[in-house]
Each structure stands twice: as C-alpha cells, then as structure tokens.
C-alpha cells in the first residue's frame, strides 16, 4: 500500500496558515498577490495529492480499499493511546475529494471577492486553517482527532462569520454560531466519553474508528441509542438541524465565499459525514435512525417554509441549505447512507455555485442583499445569470441536472426503504416543491423585470472579474454533470457513487473489518441495496415529483413575473401566517423566551448575587491575601548577603537535626 503521502494533504494548508499567519502583513506590504498564491497553491496541492490517492484507491479491488496510516503517537497515558493517523477508505476519500476541490475553487473566487479588503492575509489564513481542520476532520482515523478537526472548523467558522468584527451584528452572529455549536459539541463530547468509558470497561481503550466499530457489540443496545442520540445532537449543531439550526442563517454575516465554503458546501456536511462514518453504531439503533430521519424531514420542510418569504438573498440560500441538509439526514435516517452522501456531493457543487453567484450579485450591487431592491440583472451580468440559473435548475431537481438524481434517490429510498415511510416521502416532496418555488422566486426577483436599485448603484453594476467567474463556470459544469456519477439503476445508470461507497456501508464492511483485525458484527447492517424487483414504482414517483416541481416553478413564475401584486395580496390576506413565516416561525424568539431569558436571569443572579458578592469577594480577597503574603514574605529577602548565609545555615541545621536526631 502506498498511501503514505496522505499526511501531505493536511500539511499544505497548515504551511499556508503558518506563512500567511505569521508573515502575512509583511507579505501584503511587499506583494499582495503572494498571499493568494500561497493560500490557493496550498489547497491546490492538497487537491492534487487527494486526486492521486483517489485514483490509486480506485485502482484497488473494492474489498482492499481500507488503509490506516498512523503518522505519530499523539497522546499516550497508561493504557490509553491516541495517535495522529489518517484513515483512507472510500468514504474519507470521497469527502476529501470535494472538500479540497470545492475549497480550491472558492479560494480562487476569494481572490476577486476579497481583493479590496484590508485584512486580506487574515482572510486567507483563516480559510487555510479551515481547510486544514476540515481535512483533519474527514481523514482522521480516530474519534479524538476527528473531534479536533470538528472543533477546528467550528473555530474557523466563528472567526470567519465575525470576520468584519468591527460591525457589532457580525460579532453577535459569530458568537451565536459559536455558542450554538458549543452546545452541540458538549453533547458530542459526552457521547464520546460514555462510549469510551464503556468500551474501556471491556478493556478496549481505543478511539480508532476501526477498533470501535469492530467492538461495537460490546455496547448494550440502550447505550448505543444514547450514544447515537448524543452524537446526533452534536451533528444537529454542526449541520444546522432542528433544534440547533438557528445559527446558520445568521452566519451569512460573513463574507460570501465563507458562506459558500463553510456554511454550504463543506463544514455543515460534517454532521452528515459523521453519521455516515458511524453507520455501524446507528444501524445498531433503529430508534436513533428514526430520530435522524424524522428530524431531517422536518428540518427540510420547516426551513423551506421559512425560505419562501425571506427577502435577503443570502438568507434564502441559507434556509435552503438547512432544508437540503435535512434531506441528507432524511436519507441517512432511512438507511440510505450512500444516497445521503451523494446529495452531499451534488449539493456542495450547486450550493457553492449559488452562493458564489449571489456573491457576484452582492458585489455588483455594492453590498446590497435585499432582493426587493434588485431586479433586471440578467443583461448586465450574463455569466452570473446563466450559471446561477444552472444552479437553480440543479437544486430544484430539474431532470438532467445533478440535484435531480440525488434528491430523487433520497425520496425513493424514503419511500421504499424498510425504515422509510410514505409520510416521510411526502414531507420530502413538499419540501422539494417549495424549494423549486423559492429558488425561482429568487431568480425572478433578482434577474428579471426592471431594476429597482438606486441610480448610483445601477451605475456600478458590472460583471465580476475572471477570478470569480471561472470558478462559477467550473462549478456550473459540475452542477450539471456531477449527478451522472450516480445515475440510479432505474434510469439505466450504474449508481457509481453507491457502488463506490458500498464497502463502507454495505455488506462489504464486514469483510473490511475482518481484514483490519476486527470481529464481524453481530448486528448485521441492513442492506439498503435491496433488489429492485421492478423499476415501475420508482418511475412513477420520479414522474410525479418532477411534475409537481414544475408546477411549483410555474406558480413562482406566475406570482413573481406575471401577477406581481398577488404575493402581496396573499400576504395581506393571511397576515398572521405570513408574519409567522417571515419571522422564521418565531423560533429565535421562542428560544429566547424558553432558554435564553431564564438562563440569562439565572446568570444575572449568578453574576450579581453569587459572582460579584460571593465569588468576586472571595477571589479578590484571596488575591489580596496572597499579594499581602508576598509583600510580607519579600521582606525576608533583605539584600544582606550574610542573612542569606544564615538562612542557608538554618536550613542545614534543620535538615541535620531532623535526620540525625528526629528520624
């Protein structure tokens, strides 16, 4: 096996961080372009190495596609050892491919987008740090290293959301994201500890994925459920699911490439990745699977309803991200891991594309984000328009575009899989319709009709520079053709994505684990690749979904192109419902009332009552006490050397007296 180059993948961005982080300011003074050459170069190199390893992996027979590269020992304390090591298997390489690939494109895009920013080098430092953390997350071969990456991406997300921290709103948004994520991380860490202590009680002090999964049968079923639910709660924070999705829309305060990279394409899929990685555990707990599926479906629906009424272009996309992530979890929850990951892939292409396009729009509109002040940009920004349209087709699930294949696969699995149900499928379809509706609403409001911006802004509207449009084109090509990697068998494809990932999820896994020295699982993994006796139901569903999606588009066309007064009438006739959606179901307010206010009151009590009076009093008086002790003791240091000698003598005498006479 020659996968030993794998450590190069995370190292390149890290080197970028070090160079730009330490010397960035000086480099910018000398030669600004060097900063992005370093940053993009680092990620580009990572991508190349990933590509190399990926090709190598493809060259192997399916059952040999597992390699654990241990780089060096990290923590070793008694029986507990953790090393820094990377796991190469179809899942990690699959993730790593698009993380580095899309990451590279967005790095390139940022050159243009951030070109005039003062903190140019800081931005690229953070981006590279993010890439490092994300690569660590997906490549790690044990829970702890993965958790390091997990925390790392959270940190970068925080740093980048509040990148323009001089604006208070951005800082607040960053804080919200951070705190919400901490809540999730807390549960995640508890899950990890529960699992580790329990396995440790059986003498399995290891956090390696392969070890844990091959010994998973040591965990009693109720414990597996608890651990899975705790993990999933962590994932809901990172991947913005109910109930911890609230930070993601606010996270749009960051620069748009950040929204594209972190809050759409890569970081938010970490939860999906993690659940897939732990599929062994989740499969052992049907209840946890049910929870994942229901939460995913509800999130998909719920976020879509909110997106219907948002007027901020990035907010629409943000809620659509939440909604699409819900789809992925729906897929995972019904046991269709491969389908969920396939959607991760296609989503990363088209959502990155959509965000970058919206970035171009915002850039052209001099920072304006409200769609009500846009319109008619089609002619002024043709490239952006066409690419964004492609992205919209993809996300809406128009046949032939990538989103169609992945979304359809999830819906089909939700319908047909043993863990699925018709209700879940129906919720998914509803979300799909709404997705098509609000995405086209976005297109119509932004690119069609007359321009509603002020004269001055209109004057400045221009197409984005090359460094921004080229990534758009690449991504739009991927948005179209990315789906063909996984054409389902019903449409005569080979569903390559599923075949590729099968060793991780399917029955092949047992073989792999045996090869890695583990025991075969007691709980058999349910085969999600059940035989298709007939493709007829799948065709029916496909046609039905497509029709209903087209209907949604048509409705959008009618409402926002033809009878533009209608939306207002609808809103006026259903004021309470409209306001409910516009204000995002008042979830923020609910949280505020239920969690934050009591907590705040309690913490004010803690602060004013306990902290200021009791603790501060204690701390301050302790500090004062120690200071005073110091002041008193220091007099012993009189400056007269003979007193020092006396002190020395006293020491000797005490020692001798003790040893010779007392002992």
């Amino acid at each position, binding site marked *: 096996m020659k996968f030993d180059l794998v450590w190069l993948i995370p190292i390149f961005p890290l080197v970028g961080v070090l160079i730009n982080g330490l010397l960035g300011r000086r480099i910018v003074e000398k030669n600004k372009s060097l900063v992005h050459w370093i940053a993009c170069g680092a990620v580009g190199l990572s991508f190349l190495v990933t590509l190399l390893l990926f090709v190598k992996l493809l060259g192997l027979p399916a059952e040999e596609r597992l390699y654990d590269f241990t780089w060096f020992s990290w923590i070793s304390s008694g029986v507990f050892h953790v090393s820094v090591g990377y796991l190469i298997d179809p899942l990690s390489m699959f993730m790593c491919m698009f993380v580095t690939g899309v990451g590279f494109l967005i790095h390139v895009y940022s050159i243009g987008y951030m070109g005039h920013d003062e903190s140019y080098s800081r931005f690229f430092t953070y981006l590279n740090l993010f890439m490092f953390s994300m690569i660590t997350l997906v490549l790690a071969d044990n829970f702890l290293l993965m958790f390091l990456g997990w925390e790392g991406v959270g940190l970068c997300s925080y740093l980048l959301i509040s990148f323009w921290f001089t604006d208070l709103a951005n800082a607040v948004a960053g804080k919200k994201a951070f705190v919400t994520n901490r809540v999730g991380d807390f549960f995640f860490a508890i899950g990890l500890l529960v699992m580790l202590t329990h396995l440790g009680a059986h003498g399995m002090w290891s956090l390696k994925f392969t070890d844990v999964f091959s010994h998973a049968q040591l965990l009693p079923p109720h414990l597996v459920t608890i651990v899975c639910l705790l993990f999933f709660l962590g994932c809901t924070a990172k991947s913005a699911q109910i109930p911890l999705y609230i930070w993601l829309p606010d996270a749009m305060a960051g620069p748009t490439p950040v929204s594209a990279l972190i809050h759409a394409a890569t970081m938010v899929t970490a939860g999906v990745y993690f659940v897939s990685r732990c599929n062994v555990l989740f499969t052992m707990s049907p209840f946890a699977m049910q929870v994942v599926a229901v939460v995913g479906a509800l999130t998909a629906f719920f976020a879509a309803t909110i997106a219907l009424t948002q007027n901020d272009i990035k907010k629409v996309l943000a809620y659509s991200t939440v909604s699409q992530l819900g789809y992925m979890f729906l897929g995972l929850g019904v046991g269709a891991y491969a389908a969920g990951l396939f959607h991760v892939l296609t989503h990363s292409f088209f959502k990155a594309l959509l965000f970058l396009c919206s970035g171009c729009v915002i850039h052209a509109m001099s920072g304006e984000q409200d769609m009500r002040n846009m319109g008619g940009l089609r002619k002024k920004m043709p490239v952006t328009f066409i690419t964004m349209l492609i992205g919209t087709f993809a996300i809406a699930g128009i046949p032939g575009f990538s989103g169609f294949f992945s979304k359809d696969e999830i819906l089909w699995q939700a319908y047909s899989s043993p863990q699925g149900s018709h209700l879940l499928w129906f919720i998914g379809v509803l979300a799909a319709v709404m997705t098509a509706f609000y995405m086209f609403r976005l297109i119509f409001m932004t690119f069609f009709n007359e321009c509603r911006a002020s004269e001055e802004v209109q004057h400045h509207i221009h197409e984005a520079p090359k460094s921004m449009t080229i990534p758009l084109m690449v991504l739009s090509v991927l948005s179209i053709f990315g789906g063909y990697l996984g054409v389902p068998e019903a449409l005569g494809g080979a569903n390559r994505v599923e075949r590729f990932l099968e060793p991780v999820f399917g029955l092949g896994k047992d073989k792999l684990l045996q090869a890695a020295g583990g025991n075969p699982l007691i709980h058999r993994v349910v085969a999600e690749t059940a035989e298709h006796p007939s493709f007829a139901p799948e065709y029916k569903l496909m046609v039905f979904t497509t029709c209903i999606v087209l209907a949604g588009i048509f409705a959008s066309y009618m409402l926002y192109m033809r009878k533009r007064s209608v939306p207002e009438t609808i809103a006026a006739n259903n004021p309470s419902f409209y306001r409910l959606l516009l204000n995002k179901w008042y979830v923020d307010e609910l949280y505020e009332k239920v969690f934050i206010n009591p907590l705040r009151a309690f913490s004010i009590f803690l602060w004013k009552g306990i902290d200021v009076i009791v603790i501060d009093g204690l701390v301050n008086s302790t500090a004062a006490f120690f200071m005073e002790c110091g002041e008193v003791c220091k007099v012993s240091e009189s400056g007269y*050397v*003979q007193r020092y000698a006396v002190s020395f003598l006293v020491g000797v005498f005490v020692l001798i007296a003790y040893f010779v006479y007392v002992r």
Partner: protein
Amino acid sequence: MNDYQSVYLALSAILFGVGVLGVISRKDAIVVFLCIEIMLGAVNLAFVAFARANQSAEGLFMVMCIMAVAGAEAAIGLAIFVLLYRKTGTINIDKFNLLKW
C-alpha cells in the same frame, strides 16, 4: 591500631564551624573569603583523614582538586572585590544592598 581518626574529624568539624562563624559575622569581604578558605581547609583535613582510613588515593586527589579550586575562587573573588572597590571605595559587604526584595 588507634589512628586517632575521631580526633581529626572533630578538629575538622570545629574548624569548619569557626569558618562558618566568620562567614556570617565578619563584614569585610576579604575576611569572609578567608573564612571560606578555613572551611575548605577543614574539608581537606577530613578528606585526608578518610583517605588514610580507606587507604585510597581518591581522597588525596580530591584534596588537590580542592586546592586548585580554592586558588581559582581566590582569583575570581579578589577580582570581584577589586571591581567593587574601584566603584565604591569599600568592600564592606553590608554596603552592597541595592538588590533586595
């Protein structure tokens, strides 16, 4: 054979004590240093006595090394005294009290 070992050792201990007493009571840096030399002399005596009792040359070599070290210390110590004397006109160690607390 009575080799008066304990007499030598007692003498050495008392000499050492006299040296210590001088170090902690005299203020003249040179005399303080002389008292340290007395202590070293006492150590030498102990070493020679033990060397004879053990019948090994190690102790004798140690004494030679101590003599060399005493010489080296004298050189460095006197240089420090000269340095300070040039600056302040005194080598009373109680006068050097800038550094404290």
